[in-house]
């Protein structure tokens, strides 16, 4: 029972982290740009999926309607995609994009029709979810040779490798901390209590698991009676 709950929580956490990364990390679509325009866009409960208010391009006409640049595009297989083109500001996601005017000009310049398609790679983050009126934010547009071009996501490789390294380091630090600080302290507790046998068992039981160990370590700072 408890194992199942524990695994359930782990899977949910992993899923949240995965979705968060999928939303935030850059992706590239190979598309053809068919239209660029501005639209007064009402922003309500979906504000989380738009730039924060004071970032520049989001000229707010009222509190809840924002003039936002959009880019319409079509994939090689005929599916369409709508990107928004907003500055990201100084905080999150950390793209530090301030050139949405320039990007819109580039997008307009690379506009093409079906007869003479100009294929471009649109770097973007975010999701398109019509039900919540959420659009991915275009970050960069580069012309490519054709719809079959192969793009290697170096940025994502570097970011994921770095994250893996950070997790590994945190794990190593935790193990070192446990080995050097917590376990000797617990051994100390064990020695002190050695005479009173059953109390050692109690202390050991307490020292099980992540927080148990931390708690037991904190207890060793208390004055010994």
């Amino acid at each position: 029972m408890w194992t199942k709950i524990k695994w359930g929580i782990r899977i949910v956490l992993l899923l949240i982290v995965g979705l968060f990364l999928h939303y935030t990390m850059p992706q590239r679509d190979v598309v053809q740009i068919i239209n660029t325009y501005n639209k007064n866009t009402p922003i309500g409960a979906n504000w989380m999926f738009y730039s924060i208010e004071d970032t520049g391009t989001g000229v707010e006409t009222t509190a809840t309607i924002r003039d936002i640049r959009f880019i319409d595009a079509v994939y090689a297989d005929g599916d369409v995609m709508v990107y928004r083109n907003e500055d990201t500001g100084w905080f999150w996601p950390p793209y530090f994009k301030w050139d949405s005017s320039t990007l819109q000009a580039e997008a307009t310049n690379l506009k093409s029709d079906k007869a003479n398609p100009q294929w471009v790679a649109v770097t973007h983050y975010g999701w398109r979810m019509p039900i919540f009126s959420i659009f991915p934010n275009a970050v960069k547009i580069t012309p490519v040779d054709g719809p079959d071009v192969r793009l290697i996501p170096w940025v994502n490789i570097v970011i994921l490798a770095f994250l893996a390294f950070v997790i590994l380091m945190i794990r190593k630090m935790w193990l070192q901390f446990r080995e050097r600080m917590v376990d000797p302290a617990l051994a100390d507790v064990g020695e002190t209590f050695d005479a009173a046998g059953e109390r050692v068992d109690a202390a050991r039981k307490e020292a099980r698991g992540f927080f148990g160990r931390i708690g037991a370590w904190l207890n060793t700072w208390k004055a010994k009676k």
Partner: protein
Amino acid sequence: MGWLRLAFLMYVALTIIYFVTGIYSRSVRREKLEKEWDGDPAREGRTPQERQAFIEAGMVHYDRGLKKRLLWLIYILPTIGFLATIYLVNWQ
């Protein structure tokens, strides 16, 4: 003023990471020195004071060494990443 707030928060976080990593790195070095002493048969039977002196000397050496200075990368690399992102997104 957004960038000031971001820079402030970033360097506060990096300072915490710098100190935690520094403690970890010292701890690893100390453990290595202890094991070096304990695993050396030539040092068998020497006094705990000598062991302590050996470890302290090793730590002084560590404090002056390259490895400790490499910890500054904790500040340098994110700053470079930050500036590179700004350049690549807006100017290239």
